[in-house]
């Protein structure tokens, strides 16, 4: 049983929506923006891969959006786009069977640190804003998505940093295969804030910002209802490499994903990696180029920055935009998490309704 993507939405350093994302991928649009007016705080860089001029109210109105943190706002706009693009109607008959699965690194670091800061600097340590308390839990975006779009099915948030979205896909595939849901809004978000910018600086990454959401359904059923399936996902492989990631472990994980898809390195049209940059990334690129000589490697971090939890979202979006016949998505974290998956038959997205 394969799962199919029937709709999607994305916000990235290219801006809002799949069309500008495609433009940026094809080099027709800049993605590094001046950020000096974005926040009051001093930032470590003058420019960054961010969603410019993002104002949640202009997308979703005032009602209910007042206390969203930035990541939640981005994720919900992407969710709205994905629902619209898929044509999936959510009503009282099916809302218990429609769920949300989002990926994260550590929730909103900006929300937790700001809340924590108040306990240190206010006249009394409990003078925090209770309305912002829910933003300190890591499932805020998924919970708010459920509330806004009235989705009562499975609602899960998974932490995985660079492999978060692949973890999400694996979880969603299992949930759909076991008939625990009929449709899932799967996505991931990484917000750009002073906190994430400085945290990134201290660990040597160039943080990017992105939020993407995809509607996932059992592919055959979606087709039966006459809706378009943008792409089909083979089973995702998630593993761990004790002692840290190695080139061999990442490649073995990719091998396993190809096996799951009953395909070979030779048959790949594209390969996409997201993980910690550095010598290992170069080794993996080289090894993948040798194994898959025909596959075009897309280096997405150059264009969109290191989007961490949303890196996989950028990978899947890129596969859709280039209409990849067979793309291998590979990810790893500095801690040793590994994941890989094959996506196939990506349809051109010019007809996107988001």
């Amino acid at each position, binding site marked *: 049983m394969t799962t199919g993507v029937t709709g999607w939405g994305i916000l990235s350093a290219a801006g809002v929506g799949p069309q500008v994302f495609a433009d940026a991928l094809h080099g027709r649009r800049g993605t590094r923006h001046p950020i000096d007016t974005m926040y009051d*705080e001093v930032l470590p860089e003058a420019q960054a891969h961010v969603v410019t001029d993002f104002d949640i109210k202009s997308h979703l109105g005032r009602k209910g959006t007042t206390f969203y943190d930035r990541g939640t706002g981005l994720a919900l706009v992407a969710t709205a786009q994905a629902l619209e693009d898929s044509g999936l109607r959510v009503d009282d008959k099916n809302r*218990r069977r429609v769920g*949300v699965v989002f990926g994260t*690194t*550590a*929730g909103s*670091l900006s929300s*937790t*640190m700001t*809340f*924590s800061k*108040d*306990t*240190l*600097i206010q006249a*009394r*340590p*409990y*003078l*925090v804003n*209770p309305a912002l*308390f829910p933003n*300190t*839990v*890591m*499932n*805020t975006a998924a*919970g708010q998505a*459920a*509330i806004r*779009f*009235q*989705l*009562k*099915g*499975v*609602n*899960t*948030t*998974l*932490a*995985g*940093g660079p492999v978060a979205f692949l973890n999400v896909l694996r*979880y969603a595939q*299992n949930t759909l295969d*076991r008939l625990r849901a009929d449709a899932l809004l799967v996505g991931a978000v990484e917000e750009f804030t*002073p906190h994430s910018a*400085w*945290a990134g600086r*201290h*660990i040597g990454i160039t943080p990017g910002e992105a939020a993407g959401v995809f509607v996932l359904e059992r592919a055959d059923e979606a087709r039966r209802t006459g809706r378009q399936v943008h792409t089909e996902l083979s089973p995702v492989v*998630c*593993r*761990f490499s*004790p*002692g840290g990631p190695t080139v061999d472990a990442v490649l073995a994980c990719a091998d396993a994903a190809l096996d799951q898809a009953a395909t070979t390195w030779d048959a790949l049209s594209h390969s996409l990696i997201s993980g910690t940059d550095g010598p290992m990334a170069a080794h993996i690129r080289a090894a993948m180029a040798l194994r898959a000589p025909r596959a075009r490697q897309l280096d997405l971090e150059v264009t969109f920055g290191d989007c961490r939890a949303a890196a996989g979202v950028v990978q899947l979006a890129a596969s859709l935009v280039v209409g990849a016949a067979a793309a291998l998505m590979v990810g790893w*974290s500095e*801690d*040793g*998490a590994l994941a890989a998956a094959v996506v196939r038959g990506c349809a051109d997205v010019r007809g996107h309704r988001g």
Partner: protein
Amino acid sequence: MDRVVVTGLGPVSSIGIGVADFGRGLRAGRIGTSEIAGFDSTGFPYVHGGEVHGFAPQAMVRRVDPASWGRTSLFAAAAARLAVDDAGLGMGDVARDRIGAVVGTTSGESQVVEALTAQQVAGGFEALDPKLVELVPAARLAHAVSEELDASGPSITITTACSASNYALAYAYEHLCSGSADVMVAGGADSVCRWAHAGFYRMGALAERACSPFDRDRSGILTGEGGAALVLETFEHARARGARIYAEMLGYGLNCDAHHMVAPNQDDIAECVRQAHRSAGVAPGDIDYICAHGTGTRANDLVEARAIRDVFGDRPPPVSSIKSMLGHTMGAASGFGAIASTLAIADGFLPPTVNWRNQDPDMPWLDPVANVARTARVRTVQNNGFAFGGNNAITIFGAMDEVRA
């Protein structure tokens, strides 16, 4: 589709560390809450919490270096080590790629984030310690378990707040049912932190000294911490290695209120209960004991009690809240609930709700197993977990029935 059994338990809690001590604590109605020492509570009107005093990870873990991990990850790793030892699971008993970890949490490495915040307040963002920044990702909770066990199967952290352990158990169960693993270590971990204490106090949801769920005069939660781990195994694998089986995991239910970020919803909780029963193949009449979410706030306990009545009628099975002893251990809470549920089945007793004085006239149908543990034949248990975000998760455990095997 294989059956899933519980073969090892690893609690690192304020009422006991290790299964024997924790079990004694449950039976004795031991109160693990005390005056907070983990952060400076100066200026807070209420200063009680459920801390694990004297947690010494270096004495418990064998492979991970405590200096390289945050407190919550170490709770998870220590609990996993205890659970695996309790299961008598040796390195030769399972292939490395057939064992994985799923850990639930609310706030992950909250104490690390608080330390970074203190650095920011003192010296600006430039002053953040990169070594601390590296400890922040919540995925590290599961990775600490995988490193400790030298396991290369899936290593997943689920961050669905205060029902996260039940989500973790459910996902581990799925990995075993689908044949992608033979053994999964699942549970949850969280650390007491200043910001959660402040947040709950500000919401009016914090108790001053005692957590007294379902009591007429209950006044709120006490924030707690710890690590809870269960070894889940396919029945086949457990039988082949001659493992002791505590209980069977029969199924689970997951849904979302889609109603409010912090206020629970009665109808959706009832629906989650029914879903869990369907999944486990049990009827309400089969449930001998409900290990409640039971946070101790006025609203939450009433909503939970009413949802229970919706499903079970006016004579529900006994319902107790171990949060009365532990406080609210956040992402570990339903993991401790699962351990208590398993022990209830294996040892034939019902854990009490302590600090209970008077029946709440709004829930006369509720038997909270007041103050004293009760000897009982327990065949099937329902373990409740609810969370901010409306994330409901319920797991069902049953006595191992060799006849069905």
